[in-house]
């Protein structure tokens, strides 16, 4: 039976690393979503989340209310993401996976890769808050209420932003694709 978050946090505050590892497993996706919302880069989001969880472990005794662990953690994730953004310059090339030069490109694989790149480029055009909400919805599958609790905004605001983002993404992803690539 899954333990309650409060119990895991209380154990972790006492130095139980396994309890904290369990918390990492539960909150990692949300943390990655929030970090990605700020950084638009999967690798750097992973770096931010890694730093954030370590910091959260170190600062855990300062958390007075275990029930607020989720929001508290995401705050740390945001700070870590901002720090990383300040430290490193964003390079678009980091988003592209390395491909061996002698592997012939398969049309389907190339098309899928191009689609992913276009989607990432479209997501980058969103503002940080909206992008974070989109990521929490379409990566973590959170409801508007859960997204609102994580980001401290009302569910209505979440719905409004997501609706606007959907329309924008449809418009951008429906723009002319580069020659030789089919539209999705």
């Amino acid at each position, binding site marked *: 039976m899954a333990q309650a978050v409060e119990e895991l946090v209380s154990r972790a505050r006492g130095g139980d690393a396994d309890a904290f590892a369990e918390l990492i497993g539960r909150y990692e996706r949300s943390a990655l979503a929030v970090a990605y919302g700020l950084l638009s880069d999967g690798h750097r989001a992973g770096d931010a*989340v890694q730093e954030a969880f370590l910091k959260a472990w*170190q600062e855990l005794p*300062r958390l007075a209310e275990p029930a*607020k662990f989720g929001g508290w953690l995401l705050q740390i994730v945001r700070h870590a993401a901002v720090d990383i953004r300040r430290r490193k310059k964003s390079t678009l090339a980091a988003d592209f996976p390395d491909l061996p030069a002698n592997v012939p490109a398969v049309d389907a694989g190339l098309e899928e890769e191009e689609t*992913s790149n276009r*989607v990432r480029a479209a997501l980058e055009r969103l503002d940080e808050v909206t992008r974070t909400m989109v990521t929490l919805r379409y*990566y973590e*599958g959170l409801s508007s209420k859960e997204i609102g609790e994580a980001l401290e905004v009302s569910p209505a605001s979440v719905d409004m932003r997501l609706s606007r983002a959907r329309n924008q993404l449809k418009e951008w*992803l429906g723009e002319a694709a580069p020659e030789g690539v089919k539209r999705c």
Partner: protein
Amino acid sequence: MLNVEEKLGTLEGPERAVAQALAKALEPQRGRAGAAFLAAVREGRAEQVSAAIALTRATKHGDREGHLSAREQRRAMWLWGGLPTALAACVAVAVGLEAFLGQPGGLRHGSRVVNAAPAAMEENVWTRNVDSGVVPGDAGPLRVLRQQVVRQRRWVDPRDGAVYTVTEPGEQVNYQAVKPF
């Protein structure tokens, strides 16, 4: 089927493309934080702050990290910064009130005679006559003679050996009629 579709149902069109792109970007990052944390714990690089020195106060308006909110930090700053000032002001008011209470004219004065006359006093007087020239007068020319005097008294307080010096400069101007040729 994407993992997120278990929660959101089947996605289509741009929504599915977004979900796929996000999964592609972020799924490879899963597990990194957990592995890094456990490695840090094993290597002794992950120590928690001492609960005894953690100063945390959760309030309705506190920030999510459990630290004092910006409002409470400002409040604490005003309290601890203003408290000494307020105390000093209270002391000043109390001293001022004590000085003015019950005294006609508002100023308390206290004195006592500690010694009727100093044991010994030295007095020096310097006198100088200066001819300042002739000026026209109503009845004829007048010579201006200035007598400048400096009187200095010095005495020693036998109680503590302090030397007191009082210097009094003075000038007296005299006019002397000049007989013309």
